[in-house]
């Protein structure tokens, strides 16, 4: 092969490799994206059923019930509430009244089945998604019930 052909082969080969790699990566990325929804979104049927997603809000006080290793609790954004069921050991910082992010699926029985409940490092920390969801729900509430402060 002449050097010029060799270079051409290199470039073509490289471009093909990059194209294949990019397609693979993007496909994998698409398949593993989890969208975040607030309880209001779910009650408004914005969330797909039986698709992995994240649900975030506050653990409603007095709703944590255990049965064997299965825990049931309600997650609220102070506007709407969704029931969550999780089997396993909860992270240390899971507490009533605190922010929580659960990853799992919404089942047809209307209960969110969590596969993972995310823990945070710091008790003053609020996941940004949860903070945003709470704020949105509050704005929605106040615009209906009373003039915004």
């Amino acid at each position, binding site marked *: 092969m002449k050097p010029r052909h060799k270079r051409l082969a290199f470039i073509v080969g490289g471009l093909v490799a990059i194209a294949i790699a990019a397609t693979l*990566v993007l496909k994998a990325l698409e398949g593993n994206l*989890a969208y975040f929804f607030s309880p209001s979104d779910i009650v408004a049927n914005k969330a797909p059923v039986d698709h992995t997603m994240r649900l975030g809000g506050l653990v409603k006080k007095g709703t944590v019930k255990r049965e064997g290793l299965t825990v049931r609790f309600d997650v609220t954004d102070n506007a709407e509430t969704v029931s969550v069921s999780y089997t396993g050991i909860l992270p240390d910082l899971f507490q009533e009244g605190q922010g929580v992010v659960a990853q799992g699926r919404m089942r047809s029985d209307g209960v969110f089945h969590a596969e993972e409940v995310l823990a945070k490092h710091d008790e003053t920390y609020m996941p940004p998604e949860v903070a945003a969801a709470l704020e949105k729900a509050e704005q929605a509430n106040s615009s209906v019930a009373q003039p915004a402060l």
Partner: protein
Amino acid sequence: MIPEIGHFALITALSVALLLGILPIAGTVLRIPAWVAVARPAAYALFLFVATAFGCLVYAFVQNDFSVLYVALHSNSALPIQYRVAAVWGGHEGSLLLWILMLSGWATAVALFSRHLSPAMAARVLGVMGLICVGFLLFILFTSNPFERLFPAAVDGRDLNPLLQDFGLVIHPPMLYMGYVGFSVAFAFAIAALIGGKLDAAWARWSRPWTTVAWVFLTIGIGLGSWWAYYELGWGGWWFWDPVENASFMPWLAGTALIHSLAVTEKRGGFRSWTVLLAILAFSLSLLGTFLVRSGVLTSVHAFATDPERGLFILIFLGVVIGGALLLYAWRAPRVGLGGGFNAFSRETMLLINNVLLVVALGVVLLGTLFPLVVDAFVALNIIEPAKISVGEPYFNSMFLLPMIPLLLLMSIGPYVRWKQGNAGELIKQLRTSFIISIVLAVALPFLMGEISLMVSVGLFLAAWLMLSILQGVGSRIAQEIKRGKSAITALLGLPNGYLGMQVAHFGLAVIVAGITLVKGYEVEQDVRMEVGDTLTMSGYTFRFDGVMSTTGPNYRANRGMIQVIKDGKDLMVLEPEKRIYNVQSMPMTEAAIDYGFTRDLYISLGDPLSGGAWSVRVYYKPFIGWLWGGCGFLAIGGFLAMSDRRYRIAARKQQARMASIADGRAVVDNNIATEASS
């Protein structure tokens, strides 16, 4: 008083850093030797002032000075002394100060050990480091002053986050930062080469050991962080592809690529522009990591309460550093040149593929980490519907593996391929046997374990072949020396440290791959409800729950579970996992009980109390997990060996002699010829 001294020292450090950042580089341009000569003393002074500030903060912590806001927020009088010192970097302000301390420490180290550099080169390198220091000092002084007073003073402090009250966390951040910040040296060398327009083998020989040291620290830091997550977070995981973990892993990948591309630049003068680009990339990713950790833009298990203003500052700083470096690169890189050619089958090609694969892996991690941010940006610009997304672990696991498999295959072959022009026939003859043995092992071992899976076989094959090819490579070199009449030990010790270091580090990676393969393939995890007297049998071990008792520590109360481990009818040990409640922050913490072993860990953590006196208990059997951290140890030892290679010292001495003779006024040309002839 002491905190004010600290604050003042920081302000002084800023002015010294400005001096260091401006004068020496300007001196090289304007040819004013007196300005150039400022570099070294300024670097020492910078370190002195920053160290003073750091010392003041440590003093405030040790003395429980709760009139300092930062101390009041991160310490407590009941906190044991070693954690009070570690609490200095337990929060944002202090960790930033630690960053700066390390940066100025690295600058001082460069100033001390660069006597052999030409004054202009040393001035440029130190000047660039001074400029980086300016950025961080501005950052700390304007947004994150650790010496801010609290009036009236707090009676007691809010205590250190209990998760951080642990030996692993005492040393993990300093190690990680040493690595992060260490890449600033490689960066400074690269920028200096761009400014000077000269990049040759000598340049590579200077920057190589510095890069390797930084890489070693980063390796240790990441390893410690992973180990800490394993034993401290209480759910037995060791890598989560969490944004903050990725933030430390990306510079590591870039640094690894840089080490390999530097090898080509040093030995063959090739890959020059690419090496410079990698050096810029590695440090840029370190800065990006700092931004990700400190700005709170990403949801992460590591995300502490954060402040958007700080994020903005780092983002701007990031833009200036990366943008400036890349502009300089675009302008000057053509002058640096590409380096010599090589054959399609050669060591250079092997290292080129290594670099491509590492950069692809880096791209995969970068995309997965930043994708949620990109979506946020599009939402903010009203381009797409509002959505919050996260990228799942399976993406990282599967996509990261793709470039890793060919990389590991290549690692077995690469060191056997000659520079410039390899010999494929010879190679096949050399590697045939080890290849076949590895295949047999990879098929047979899963059979013995009683569970066959393709992934396990692939992983075991890669690890086994890599180990065998390394042993064979080192063995044959020793055999050669023995033929020449040396004893086996002198032969081993006589091998160049650079070569030995490479092999040890590669062996470490093989150990890690074996560990990951076996733990992923054969680990057993169970969450169970246990009443007193209940037993659970797993992988040949029986665990009996003997109840929970309460106990107290210096600053916490705890429930301590007692679990009797029985094997073959004999009582083996009692594991005592704890569930602690820290008094001040009333924060619960799981303290797992682990029995470490060479071939397996037993891992137990206590969940929550359930009805009827029962507890939820998490019992894990983790085969070969210790190999992960053992492998990291090999990586670090390999790195240290490689940087201690004799040729760096010899080169340094030669260069020094050359400089001295220039000073003596002898003709440079003659001297060059003399050095050339002697080498």
